[in-house]
């Protein structure tokens, strides 16, 4: 029983990280049909920004930690907005070229991060509580997992409220469904493009700071390694569906934890799950677009 609880909660903790990356990917794809390979770089830069901030202001204090999340979110959002304005927008309606540009950006920025911060992992410190454990139904759960789950839930609620109750949110939801009809109502849908990049970048930035605590280090590669799983989660959940991304994040990560614990083949199970879902339901669990 305690093992199950442990695997479940640590799985949800991992799923929280997946969701922070996948939410942006899914929104961006849903609205713009762009598969954003540079999303991992938003995350990595956010992680480095958070670490640079934290090490200057005392990495073991809660205040610094929380502020480092904000710094990561801001840096991720700015990077994402610049990407949209300077690269993606130039290739409006050129879907493959947009994907190619994000591929180029991902390769170039990872190399740049290597140049700036080196290839080796940089270990970081966190508030002491995060290194401790809490007993839940007999299972000792690392405290940081609760934090990841809380962060993901807060981000999910924030995005849902934004989408539900603001005009921009309305435009984004409509645009995901039928972009050209939105423009035919006299709305410049491109402002919504910039906005989803900002939202996605911010979520990825937060995800980056948290992922660096999850790993215990920052490195130029943390974005890329999470990105593959985030892609898988996004596709399984249904491209463009936020709730799909949330559910798939949790399911995939928990499944991965269980498979890893019992047979050591978590990654493989995820890949097989993706293949199975795509073959049975090509549009994903909750997706409406093929």
């Amino acid at each position, binding site marked *: 029983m305690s093992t199950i609880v442990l695997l479940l909660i640590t799985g949800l903790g991992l799923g929280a990280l997946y969701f922070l990356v996948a939410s942006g990917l899914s929104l961006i794809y849903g609205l713009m049909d762009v598969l954003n390979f540079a999303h991992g770089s938003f995350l990595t830069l956010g992680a480095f920004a958070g670490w640079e901030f934290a090490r200057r202001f005392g990495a073991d204090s809660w205040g610094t930690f929380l502020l480092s999340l904000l710094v990561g979110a801001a840096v991720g959002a700015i990077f994402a907005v610049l990407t949209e304005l300077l690269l993606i927008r130039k290739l409006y309606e050129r879907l493959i070229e947009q994907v190619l540009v994000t591929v180029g950006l991902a390769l170039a920025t990872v190399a740049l991060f290597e140049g700036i911060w080196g290839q080796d992992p940089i270990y970081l410190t966190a508030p002491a509580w995060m290194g401790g454990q809490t007993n839940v139904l007999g299972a000792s759960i690392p405290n940081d997992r609760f934090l990841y789950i809380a962060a993901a839930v807060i981000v999910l609620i924030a995005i849902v409220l934004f989408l539900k109750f603001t005009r921009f949110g*309305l435009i984004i939801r*409509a645009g995901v469904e039928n972009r050209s*009809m*939105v423009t035919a109502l006299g709305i410049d849908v491109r402002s919504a493009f910039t906005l989803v990049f900002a939202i996605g970048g911010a979520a990825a930035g937060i995800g980056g700071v948290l992922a660096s605590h999850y790993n215990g280090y920052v490195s130029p590669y943390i974005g890329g390694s999470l990105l593959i799983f985030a892609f898988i989660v996004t596709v399984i959940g249904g491209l463009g569906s936020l709730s799909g991304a949330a559910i798939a994040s949790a399911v995939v990560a928990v499944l991965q934890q269980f498979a890893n614990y019992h047979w050591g083949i978590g990654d493989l199970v995820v890949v097989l799950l993706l293949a199975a879902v795509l073959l049975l339901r090509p549009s994903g669990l909750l997706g409406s677009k093929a």
Partner: protein
Amino acid sequence: MNAPAPSDSILTVRNLSAKVAGQQVVEDVSFDVPATGVTALLGRNGVGKTSTIKGILGLIERKGELTFAGERIERLRTHKIVQRGIGYVPEDREVFSKLSVAENLRLAERTSKPRRELVDNLFPDLVERAAQKAGTLSGGQQQMLSLGRALINENRLLLVDEPTKGLAPIIVSQVADALAEAAKTVPILLVEQNLQVVRQLAEDVIVLDGGRVVYTGKAKTLLDDETLIHRFLGVSGGDSHPAPSVASATSAQEERA
């Protein structure tokens, strides 16, 4: 080549050509839309009516000169064109099915003074179902919502594409009445297959065939002439009219895509 536009037209179209999926679907089309009343754009299936409308709005790749209320618009992006005062009711309604009825209308509002009352009075059904997802509405209700989205703003022209397609007769007459009401204040360019509705609403007609304009004139003249109807629209007269060519069938498919 370019005849001066009559001063009483709201929209002049000159040499409009449009492509869908690389295929020429509208070729060198020129016509005027008068500043009052309903002008019907007619023609057999797949002759490029919908593409003409989409071309005017810049929703598909097109070339030509478009003048709306004295301003050239062919270089503007779709949303800018619409902001000049055009309401669009697309073929197949295109309501946002995951948004509620109220949200669909709210999204369409372009000013701080939307004409909610007018829409509510025209379509009381929509008021009742304001919180319902548009995807769960019946076809007729969706059409009213689509019309409502266009009427909620004060427009200078409405582009209405096959509003009665696939609707029950009783709904057809409701939609036609709503359009007649709207036409009192705003000119309409109407694509319509139902000649009954055309007769009720339209003063002028433009007929397309094979992507070109083949007839313009008064609606009454056309509709009272069986041979003209037969020649241009092929809707009556048994099997003496030629079957639609393969080319037009293909473009019809792509038009819908």
